[in-house]
């Protein structure tokens, strides 16, 4: 025989089910998102992965709009890079190969994201490692705070009843004043 559920427990169960639903649907959401991205133009996608190398705008080639120049769109350099991508995509080159060709031509500076290899790999690792280390530090601090001994009761001879009575008397006088 099941016990009747009270309102609070029912609400807690609904909230729990809601959390489970969100967790369960999250991978689906991610999958749908990546499927959409796959269908997008490879050329446009690769254009956002390389910097415009004109040296003035500091933007991705696909997003280059050159503030302050006569045309608010890809400059000659960015257009050249986008054309290069278009040709290589048409030739059937893989994304990695296309990006590598840019690195060979301009150096690693051309990649908008830092490489995931060698020393530059640390740019990705450190921001993840530091909060974890900080978390560990916080945990240690919390343990120390919680583990700190309660103030010890003073040792030594007890207070005499006469002294206690005298102090109590003085305190009462203060209170009346």
């Amino acid at each position, binding site marked *: 025989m099941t016990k009747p559920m009270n309102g609070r427990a029912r609400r807690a169960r609904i909230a729990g089910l809601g959390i489970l639903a969100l967790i369960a649907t999250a991978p689906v959401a991610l999958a749908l998102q990546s499927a959409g991205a796959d269908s997008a133009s490879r050329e446009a996608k690769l254009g956002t992965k390389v910097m415009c190398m004109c040296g003035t705008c500091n933007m991705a080639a696909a997003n280059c709009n050159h503030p*302050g120049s006569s045309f608010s769109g890809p400059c000659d350099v960015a257009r050249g890079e986008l054309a290069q991508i278009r040709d290589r995509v048409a030739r059937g080159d893989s994304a990695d190969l296309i990006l590598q060709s840019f690195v060979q031509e301009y150096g690693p500076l051309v990649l908008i994201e830092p490489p995931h290899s060698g020393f530059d790999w640390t740019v990705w690792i450190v921001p993840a490692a530091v909060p974890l280390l900080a978390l560990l530090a916080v945990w240690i601090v919390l343990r120390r705070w919680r583990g700190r001994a309660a103030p010890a009761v003073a040792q030594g001879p007890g207070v005499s009843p006469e002294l206690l009575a005298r102090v109590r008397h003085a305190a009462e006088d203060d209170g009346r004043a």
Partner: protein
Amino acid sequence: MDVFGSFALLLALLAAAYAFIGGIAGILGRRPLLTKSARNAGMAVFALVSCAVACLEYFFFTDNFSLAYVAEHSNRALPGFYKFAALWAGQEGSLLWWSWLLAGFAFVVLAMHRKKHPELMPLVGVTLAGIQIFFLTLNNFVASPFHVLAGMNAAGHLQVATVADGNGLTPLLQYFEMVIHPPMLYLGYTGFAVPFAFAMAALLGRYPGEKWIHITRRWTMVAWCFLGVGILLGAHWAYAVLGWGGYWEWDPVENAALLPWITGTAFLHSVMMQEKRGMMKVWNVWLVFTTFLLCILGTTLTRAGIVNSVHAFAQSSVGGWFFGFLAIVLAVCIVAWWKNRDYLRSDNQLDSLVSRESSFLFNNLVLLAACFAVLWGTLFPILSEWVTGSKISVGPPFFNKVNIPIALFLLFLTGVGPLLAWRKTSFDALRRNFAWPLAGGLAVGVVAFVLSDRDFYALICLVLAVFVTLTITSEFYRGARVIASRGGTNLLAAAGELTMRNTRRYGGYIVHLAIVLIFVGISGTAFKTDVQKEMMPGQTLRIGPYTILCQNFDQEATDNYQGDRATLEVLENGRSKMMLYPAKRFFPASQTTETMVAIESSPLRDLYVVYAGRSPQTGKPVIHAYINPLVKFIWFGGIVMILGTLLAMLPERRAALVVREAREASWGSDPAPPVTVHAGAQASRTDGDD
């Protein structure tokens, strides 16, 4: 007149030096008169730097191009509004502007507290004077705005020269936000010098208790708010002027402004731990120090040119000076802390992991993680070049990947933290406070999942935004309900009463709401779309629910610029909705071009239209249109943030009520029921005040 300006700056430096040295001598020798005269010298700096600023403005407004700085940043056709703003358009003027704002803050601090805190204020004055000496040294000897143009006369002698007209102000700066964005940022940067000075003074003077925290709370909030508003204005300027459809590109200079704002936010939270429980004293002092150091680092990055940035108009060789100053300030901070570290011992211990204290710890941890990630990404290209010999780019994808999860966790803590009680929170209280907000957030999330384009982070952001909004609303509701039931007022009036009784707490909640709005606005980026098309009159472009019909292109001309302007009719569902006039302007004085974006803004989306100019290949006009969802939430969030901060700075009505009740009781009259005092605390279900 240039001599007058230079002389005023020199006198200001001497006054600051006297305030510094005289102040130290007065403190060490216990000579009150000397201390007082040092304080007066510190206040006089403001008057003297004001003279220099007025002098430079006089040159701008009278089109006197004998000064190199004026010739470089102004011209005759420049509207007066921008002539005023040209003061901070370049390196020398912006440093003078720094000095003036810093002197202004120092003046107000020293004047306001001149009869209070006799042990603390002399040290505060000395610290502020030390900072002023650095900036005034730059103003006088490294980057003076009063350098005159010189040329050889017929006799071969050097003489003051002038040019017929100046180079004009960079067109990108000829925009309303640019007139107020730099002052706001600089008010934030310089404002953080005040809590820094108080923290340093309290540490050096071993000032007892948490008094300095109470004194500087409002100062910190003022600086934090100015910096936040400055950042948002900068974002709005980038959005409305640069014409790329975005507002934040993780540019090093944008990051530099964000860093002290993040640590300032951490300080505003952790400082409550020290006030309420006497904990985190070392942490707080270092947060204040770090915030000020990051302010200096920010301005160093702006000027030193060590990282690539679109803010290239202020680069020069002053970087070395700033690095030297940074090193000195850091050394002073370390020594001051090391010598007085026993003064910073914690008074209390943590009673439970599920408590307000631990939520503040996590909040600080996450904020500092975000700050570190931004700093790390900003400076990594330099480190990489130093280690590997080749330079790399750390662009927006890195910052987005690293910071979005951190920011979302922070948003979660924004909802959780305020509902936890000081010392310990029971499981029952947790369930009671969080069940409905969590359920509400999840319900909205499920609906959005079904109906929207299902961007993962945007969905999580929406769920958390609803969760935080509901937790804050429930806090207001519970408090207001108690007051309404006891006082017989309606809920709205009771909510107002509740807010005024604890302005700090409820002002803080309103700031949290502002952060929610800003997050929602940022999440709209996930659904941004754009279309670019060559358009001749009569042609149309479709984007989202809009059809843009090109009517014609014409020219506009003023003394300051010549422009090409597009006239576009926007139709929604076949009906004419509005006209838009995006333009491209050419400024002959500086030989550069500016985009005038046309934006039709509504709460849910912006139609953002750029006249990109004529295509380099075909010569035809090109229109670039964007749909930017929810952007208005960001700007509206900024306004709410200002209102919340102002509210949090107001004195609380509760203290006045307590005094009134005590007086009534002492007169023997029937005292007012204690509900006015206890209602807020009872209603909050947490035992804290903040």
